[in-house]
């Protein structure tokens, strides 16, 4: 891979090149002056610091979508909650049964999970874990996250605002600075099995920054969320092109809000249906990436999220929970597989 920045023009010679800032393709590029000064040839020290900080994390996922409101934060939080449950609860849930108290105290290997919210202007993660009133604390080891439970740690800008309604009116560079700090300075504990990173919609500063730092740090890949309709699929196609362009593996595509079952007559309506695109599955096929599954539109999903609850624990027998269990299993398989390929 060239050393060109993630957001460079296709003709970029790369900031380390002798031609940096002088090549004809540099004309009009916002970084031209910086590159010409030789500044670009210096390594951003944060890249290595972050690589170091991320050593303690076994698996790292980005949850992405070009479109807003498709359920990235919902999926991120439900995925993290699911990953944090022990095997016994999961296998019961697969049979549609709720866990008993004794299942929770089971002395088993505990999976350590972290959630990092880099949606700085619209952080939903604190609310989706019911942690709105929490604050981040500074210690000599770094920033300590808020804890949903012992094995589930959460970091979000939402924990840093004096007032929940304060807007974060920041341009890119300031956002990039905070994301860098989140990746480098958070003390997640001795080790994490999974870090789930929730992102804002789009392909801009937050995405460029997180990819630039993590592509050196063994990122497992991205899970891309879409809803079935064409408008959303169109944006998600752009997101998949982005992943391809910056060379991050796509773990798979999840289609959210597929079909609504009327609680009264049990009839299913496809509220958001694809007209031409064929929805998430077709999209995955076209880009040659795995399709992970569909989660139906279910008011109970929304309620669980508003109240910081895991749908798998709360209503294991619902179609949404069963779909999620399937998806989580695929994600686990995929990433174990990825990791084996990487290490051996």
């Amino acid at each position: 891979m060239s050393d060109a920045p993630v957001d460079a023009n296709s003709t970029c010679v790369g900031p380390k090149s002798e031609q940096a800032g002088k090549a004809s393709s540099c004309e009009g590029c916002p970084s031209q002056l910086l590159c010409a000064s030789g500044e670009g040839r210096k390594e951003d020290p944060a890249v290595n610091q972050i690589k170091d900080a991320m050593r303690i994390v076994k698996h790292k996922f980005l949850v992405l979508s070009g479109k807003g409101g498709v359920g990235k934060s919902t999926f991120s939080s439900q995925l993290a909650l699911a990953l944090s449950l022990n095997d016994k609860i999961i296998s019961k849930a697969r049979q549609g049964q709720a866990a008993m108290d004794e299942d929770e105290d089971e002395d088993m290997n505990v999976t350590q999970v972290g959630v990092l919210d880099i949606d700085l202007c619209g952080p939903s993660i604190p609310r989706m874990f019911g942690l709105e009133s929490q604050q981040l604390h500074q210690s000599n080891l770094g920033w300590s996250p808020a804890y949903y439970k012992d094995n589930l740690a959460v970091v979000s800008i939402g924990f840093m605002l004096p007032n929940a309604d304060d807007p974060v009116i920041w341009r890119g560079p300031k956002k990039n600075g905070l994301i860098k700090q989140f990746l480098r300075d958070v003390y997640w504990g001795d080790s994490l099995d999974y870090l789930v990173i929730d992102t804002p919609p789009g392909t801009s500063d937050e995405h460029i920054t997180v990819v630039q730092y993590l592509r050196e740090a063994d990122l497992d890949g991205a899970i891309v969320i879409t809803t079935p309709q064409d408008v959303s699929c169109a944006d998600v196609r752009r997101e998949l092109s982005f992943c391809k362009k910056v060379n991050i593996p796509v773990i798979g595509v999840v289609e959210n809000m597929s079909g609504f079952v009327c609680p009264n007559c049990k009839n299913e309506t496809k509220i958001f249906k694809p007209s031409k695109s064929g929805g998430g599955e077709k999209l995955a096929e076209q880009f040659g990436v795995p399709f992970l599954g569909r989660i139906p539109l279910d008011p109970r999903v929304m309620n669980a999220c508003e109240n910081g609850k895991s749908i798998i624990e709360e209503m294991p027998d619902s179609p949404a929970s069963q779909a999620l269990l399937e998806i989580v299993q695929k994600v686990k398989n995929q990433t174990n597989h990825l990791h084996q390929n990487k290490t051996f």
Partner: protein
Amino acid sequence: MSDQVQSKLLKRMSTIKHKILVLSGKGGVGKSTVSTQLAFSLALSRKDIRVGILDVDICGPSIPKMLGIDKNEVFTCTEGWVPVKVKLSGDDDDNRLCCMSIGFLLQSEDDAVVWRGPKKHSMIQQFLEDTYWGDLDALIIDTPPGTSDEHITLAEILKESKPDGAIIVTTPQGVSLADVRKEINFCNKLGIPVLGVVENMSGFACPCCNEITNIFSSGGGRKLAEQFNIDFLGQIPIDPQLASCEDEGKNFLQSFPESASAKELENITNKIKKRITLL
């Protein structure tokens, strides 16, 4: 901003009577839907009204698709970029609704626009400076979610030419309202008047038994408006026909004029017209 740029902008904006921003802290709540439908609705409400839509969602432009003009290209004339025209059925020519979006400038519709803030800033500035709208009664500006580069840029650039204000779109549930409260405070901080709140996707009527389910709950938008003491403009239900029309680039208001959502959209448009005194 240099004086030269500023005066060019002021001149450009001087041919536009009303400038309305459509904002929301949250994504996927229906900003582009409200922008498109409001534009249609304004243009349909009277034969002599000309409306433009400017799509500043640089990374996720949906307006061209929703207007059914996503295969079009933008041409330049001596006056600048010529926005793409949309023909309304019943009109003889296509001179009453037009649109400018980055979507028209991309080589392929799958192209990801991977840009940091400064590049987005220049693009938006160029859109405002160089688009040749001609005389417009209203320009509706559709935005991406958030309170970042695009929004700060718009607020800065439009300051001198005094936009009428912003329509805030939300869905009824708490996660959405939380982000939207931030957006209203953003408007207050930057001195953008708020024209009112639209609650979108409230309630779904089952086509089979007509039972209404509030999938994303209901009433949150009205409460929000009360809390901030701003106008509540209306409540649009979840309507699969609306979603399909937008996917296919069909004119929803002309296709399903009798539907509950079309009627509510018309109400909302009337309130906005009153508010900005476009009568």
